[in-house]
């Protein structure tokens, strides 16, 4: 089980950094702030994660400031509800992974 948090802004270098990190660390759940994105469409989300095995909840940037995105591997986590507020996102869901080391599916 791995959860990642990073502050980042726009730019291909940073996007590649993220998708590389997700792949290298086999990330299940990922939180990003200062995305500067008002909206994350499918193409952008898949690109950020590096694959389409992903779901996300975004809390869009306002006037190019802030922006949160919470992403997770679809076969690791299932969303049941969420709430976005100013500067925060609350995610509720169920881990589909278990076991002592959280690695068995």
């Amino acid at each position, binding site marked *: 089980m791995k*959860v990642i*948090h*990073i*502050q980042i802004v726009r730019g291909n270098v940073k996007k590649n950094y993220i998708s590389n990190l997700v792949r290298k660390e086999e990330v299940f759940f990922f*939180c990003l*702030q200062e995305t500067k994105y008002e909206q994350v469409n499918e193409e952008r989300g898949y690109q950020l994660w590096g694959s389409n095995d992903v779901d996300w909840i975004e809390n869009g940037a306002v006037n190019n400031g802030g922006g949160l995105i919470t992403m997770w591997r679809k076969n690791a986590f299932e969303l049941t509800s969420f709430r976005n507020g100013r500067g925060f996102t609350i995610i509720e869901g169920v881990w589909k992974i278990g076991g002592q080391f959280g690695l068995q599916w």
Partner: protein
Amino acid sequence: MVGVLNSIRFVGERRGQCSNVDYSREVQSFNKFSGETGLVDIPLVSRKFTWYKPNDTVKSRIYRIVVPPDWLVKWSGCKQYALSRSVSDHCALILKVTSIDWGTKPFRSFDIWQKDGRFRDFIKCQWNNYEILGSGLFVMKEKLERLKSDIKKWNRDVLEM
């Protein structure tokens, strides 16, 4: 919970140009928050701070991941790793469970083997049948290694354990 808590848990978690600033109130407020929510801090390994000013004069552990105590029951041995700064002056935090590598498994002998009349003959027969070339020490090491896996097989096939 993940994010900028903008507060520190110990005085040593922030270094700044004004080293005489009293951070104890901040520490108190973090501990109060932790007490009220029940969220606990997870040990940070690999570096001490999670944010650095580009010239390193100011550094702090403002980002952290805190979890409810049940989390540690489900995923024990979970640690926070701060990655190196690369594309940002903020370090990515990774929360992960690293399984502990205890090294090579020791070989254990069971009393029941000694009691079984066939065991001695089996060992003798196997030991003399291995054909290994090399120095004496090497031959012995190789023989012991093969014997180990043959005993395991014998244990499974003959004793059906």
